[in-house]
C-alpha cells in the first residue's frame, strides 16, 4: 500500500450524499471517527474503497468520499475480496451490520478471515436488524424484545469475536461507538495490520435496541463492566483498577486485588500468542456476570492472501507463454 503523507482533514472524506440515519444513531459517531482516522492515515482518497452490504450500517460507504460499492445483503467480504484481487494496492474497508455479517454473510466473512485477505472489516453490532425495522439478530442477547421476539428472544446469540477467532483471524478487536479515542486507536491498528483486520463495534440503535450497551458507554457504570485490553499487561479494571481477571482452572474469575490476591495471580493479556486460547476465553466474557473486553484480542503476523498467492505463483513451473498455451501440447502442422 502506498502511504504518502498527505495533509487531510475529516471533511475531505465527506461525500455529498445527505446522511440519513435516525437522530441519535450510534452510526454518526462511527462515521465521524472513521473519517478522522482516514484523514490521519495519509492514504489518498482514490486508493481507498469502502464495500458494504445492506442495512443501516451498510449505508456508510455512501457518506465517505472515496470509492464505494454497496452490494447485496451479506456478500460484502466476497465483493471486497474481488476488489482487492483486482488491485492489491487499494486500502479496502468492509462495513457490515451484525445481521448482514452473522446471518447471510457468515460464510463469506469466515472465509475472508481464514484467507487473511488484506481487508479492514468493521462489524457494526447493534444486536438487532435495524434497516429492516427491528427484528432479532443472530447477536441479540437472550431476552431481546423485537418484532420477531415480542416476549424476548430465546436463541443463543453468536459472539462475533469468538467466531472471528475460530475463523483463524489474525487481527481481532472490539470497540464502542461513543468512545471516540478508543475507536480511533483501533481503526488505526486495524489499518496498519497486514491481513484481515476484524473490528466489532458496539453500536447503539436508538430506535430498535436503545441502551443495550449502556454498561459499556455510561461513564459511571462502564469502569466496572468494561475491561480495556492492553498487550502484555495484567487484565485490570474498575475505577481504582483494583478488579482483575484470574483463572480458576479454565474458568475465568473476577477478583479484587488485596487480601491475598496479588498481581501475580492476574491474567496477563497476550494479543500475539501463538494460539488464540486466551483471546477466545476473553471473547466469551459477557455481562452482567462478567465485564466485557474492549481492545485488541488478537494481533498476529501471517502472510496475507496476496502474499500467499504471490508465493504460490513463484513455486512450481514458471508460467507458460500465451502462444504456447494457445498451441497446446499436441499441435500439428499441415502443409
Amino acid at each position, binding site marked *: 500500500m502506498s502511504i504518502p503523507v498527505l495533509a487531510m482533514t475529516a471533511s475531505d472524506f465527506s*461525500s*455529498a*450524499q445527505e446522511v440519513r440515519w435516525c437522530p441519535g444513531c450510534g452510526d454518526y459517531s462511527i462515521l465521524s471517527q472513521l473519517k478522522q482516522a482516514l484523514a490521519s492515515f495519509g492514504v*489518498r*482518497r*482514490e*486508493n*481507498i*474503497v*469502502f*464495500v*458494504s452490504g*445492506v442495512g443501516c450500517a451498510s449505508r456508510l*460507504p*455512501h457518506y*465517505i*468520499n*472515496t*470509492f*464505494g*460499492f*454497496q*452490494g*447485496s445483503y451479506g*456478500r460484502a467480504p*466476497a*465483493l*471486497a*475480496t*474481488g*476488489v*482487492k*484481487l*483486482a*488491485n492489491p*494496492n*487499494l486500502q479496502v474497508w468492509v462495513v457490515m451490520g451484525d445481521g448482514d455479517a452473522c446471518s447471510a454473510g457468515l*460464510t*463469506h466473512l*469466515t*472465509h475472508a478471515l481464514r484467507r487473511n485477505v488484506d481487508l479492514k472489516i468493521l462489524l457494526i453490532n447493534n444486536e438487532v436488524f435495524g434497516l429492516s425495522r427491528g427484528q432479532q439478530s443472530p447477536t441479540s442477547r437472550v431476552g431481546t424484545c423485537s418484532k420477531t421476539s415480542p416476549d424476548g428472544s430465546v436463541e443463543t446469540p453468536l459472539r462475533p469475536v469468538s467466531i472471528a477467532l475460530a475463523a483463524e483471524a489474525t487481527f481481532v478487536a472490539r470497540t464502542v461507538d461513543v468512545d471516540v479515542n478508543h475507536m480511533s486507536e483501533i481503526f488505526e491498528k486495524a489499518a496498519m495490520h497486514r491481513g484481515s483486520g476484524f473490528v466489532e463495534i458496539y453500536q447503539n440503535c436508538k430506535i430498535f435496541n436503545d441502551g443495550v450497551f449502556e454498561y459499556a458507554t455510561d461513564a459511571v457504570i462502564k469502569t466496572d463492566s468494561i475491561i480495556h485490553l492492553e498487550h502484555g499487561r495484567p487484565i485490570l479494571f474498575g475505577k481504582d483498577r483494583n478488579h482483575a481477571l484470574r483463572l480458576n482452572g479454565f474458568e475465568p474469575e473476577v477478583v479484587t486485588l488485596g487480601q491475598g490476591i496479588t498481581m501475580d495471580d492476574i491474567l496477563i493479556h497476550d494479543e500475539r500468542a501463538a494460539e488464540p486460547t486466551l483471546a477466545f476465553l476473553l471473547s466469551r466474557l459477557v455481562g452482567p456476570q462478567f465485564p466485557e473486553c474492549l481492545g485488541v484480542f488478537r494481533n498476529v503476523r501471517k502472510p496475507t492472501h496476496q502474499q500467499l*498467492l504471490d508465493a504460490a*505463483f513463484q513455486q*512450481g513451473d514458471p*508460467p*507458460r507463454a*500465451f*502462444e504456447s*498455451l*494457445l*498451441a*497446446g501440447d*499436441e*499441435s*500439428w*502442422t*499441415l*502443409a
Partner: protein
Amino acid sequence: MPGTTLTIARSTIPHGTPVERAAAVVRFAGDANDGVLLVGTQFTYACAMVGNAVMTVPDPAAEIRAPAGALAGVTAFQCHFAGHAIHTPGDRLDLLVALNPSALRTYIGDLSPAGLLLVDSDRFVPDEWAKAGYVADPLQDAALQAFRVLAVPIRQLNREAVARVNLIPTEIERCKSFFVLGLSYWLFDRPPEPTFRWIRETYNKNPGLVEAHTRAFKAGWHHAETLGPGLQSRVGQRCLKSGKHRMINGATALALGFLAAARQSGLPMVYAGFPVAPASELLHLFTEWKQENIQVIQPEDDLAAANIALGAAFGGSLGVTATTSTGIALQADTLALAAISELPMVAVHVQRAGPSLGMPTRTEQADLLQAFYGRNGECPVVVLAQSSPSDGFRIAIEAVRLAVTRMTPVVVLTDTYLMSASEAWHVPSSSELPMVLAKQTKADPEHPLLPYSRDEHLARPWAIPGRAGLEHRTGGMEKEANTGAVSYDPANHEAMVALRARKIAKIAEKLPPLVVHGPKSGDVLIVAWGSVCGATHDAAERCRAAGLNVANIGLTHLSPLPADLVGVLRKYRRVLVPELNAGQLSKILRAEYLLDVVSLNKVQGQPFLVSEIEAKVRQLLGPC
C-alpha cells in the same frame, strides 16, 4: 533404439484394398484403466494428421472409481473423422471397441447395422458377464449376429507380443491399449508412424517400454490382417486447411478465449470459480496455466464466486466466473447487481440436465430462459451461446468485448457436451487476434466525473479505484441519471430501466449479418443455438444434399437477438427450432416475432443425433 521400429511391414496377407469412405465413427469403450482415453486420443491424432476433419467426445464413467468391470465404471471415447467438414462426433458407430462386457452392454445400441464390433474375448467370461448383468455369454446372443463381430483374445495376444520384453504385470496390461490401437489403425488404414514417434518420446527414458508398446501395436496391426477380407476401410480425403492445428475442447477454447481477451484488452483478469462439474474445467485450466495477469481463486461458494468477479470488475479487472445449472440461480442476484451498477463481468453458465441436481452431469439446454429472466426486476443482460467446442475462443472474446465496451454483465451459455467435446482447430497466430478496447476512464479536471453519463453505446464510464478524481459510490440501488446518486424518483426509475434495456438492445444494431447456410428463402429454416448448432448444420447439409429446400442458422447472440433475424425468419415457410429442452428459444421467438415456429425437443441428457433433426425436417416437408 533401432529406427526400424518406426516402420511397419504392410500387407503381408492379401486382404484387398481398403474401401474408401467419406467419414467414419469409432468408439473405444472399457474400464477406466483400459486406456480408452489414450487410445482414442492417439487414434484421433492419426486421423487429424492426415488432414481429416475430426471431432471427438469422451463419455466418462458414471462413478469416480467403480469396481473393475462394473457398468458404473464404463468409460468411452468417440471419434468422428471425415474428408469433409463435420460438426458432431457422429451418430451411429462404424466401429465399437468393447473391452469388457459392461462396455458392450452400455453401447451396443449405438452400433450401426453395418458396423464392426471388436471385443476382447478374454474378458467375456462368466464372472465378467455377471458384472454387466448378463446371464449368458452375450457374444453368443442372437442379437449380435446382425453385426460383424471381431472377437479377439486381446489380453492373450498382447501378452504374447510383449513376452520377450522384461516387464512387470501392470506394464504388460498397459500395453494392451497399443494392441487395440494397432488393430484399429489397420482397420481404418491410419498411418502408424506418428504413434510410434509418440511412444518413443513418451518412454524415452525406458527402451524396454518403447519396445513393448511398439510390439503390442504391431501385433494388433498384424492380427487385424488375419481377420478376413472386406474389413479395412479408409477416409482418404483431406479436409483441414494447411497450418498449425490442435485438438481443442470447449472448456479449453473458452479459457484460451478469456486469456486472449485479457491480453488483447490489456486488462488484468480475476477468475473466481467454485468447483462444480463441468464448469470446474475452467478453474482447473486457469490454475494450471498460472499467468502473470490472472488471479485465480476458488471461493467458498457460487455466490462468493460471482461477487468476487463483480468486485474485481469494480476494481478495474476483467471479472470472470463460471458455474453450472445448480449454481446459476445463486449467481442471479449478483448479475442483477452488476446490471444496475453497470459493471462488466462475464458469467459462464454450463448447462446440465436439471431441475435441481437432475442428472449430473448430462447435457441439456434448459437454462436459456433462466439466463434471460432469472433475475429480479427488469434486468436484461447480454446472453451469448457457445456453438461448438472451438467456438468458445471466439465467444469468450466477444463476451469480454461486449462487457467492457457496454458496461454490462454478460452470460455465456454452454453445456456439458460442448465443454468436453473436441475438434481440430486452426491455431490462430497471436498477432492476428482482435484488439479489445476497454473503456476505462481517465480523470479530467475540466469535467468532473459523471459516473452514470453515457457514450455512443449508452455505456457509462468505467471509473476505477486508484485514479484520483474518479471517486464515486455505486451499488444496488436505483441511480439518478448521470450522477449515479441514489434516487427514488419515479420518472428517473422508469427512464433508467428503459435506458438499461436500450443499452442492451442497441448491441443488435452493430452485429455482423447472420450467416444463412443454404437457400436464402424457401421451405424450412432450422434455427439452432448452442450445442445444437453442430447437429443442425450437418442435418441441414444432408437435407440439402438430398435436394431439399432447407436452410439453417446458428445463433450465438441471444440477448439481444440480431436485428436481421426477423427478416431471415420470415423468408421461410416453416421455422424449425431444435433444442435440448422443452422449447425455450421457441418461446422467445414466438413472443418476439409472433411466429408459429415448430419446436423439436429432446430432454434426455444427450445431444441430438443428426438423424433426429433430419427426420423432423423430412416430416415437416411431408411426403414428397
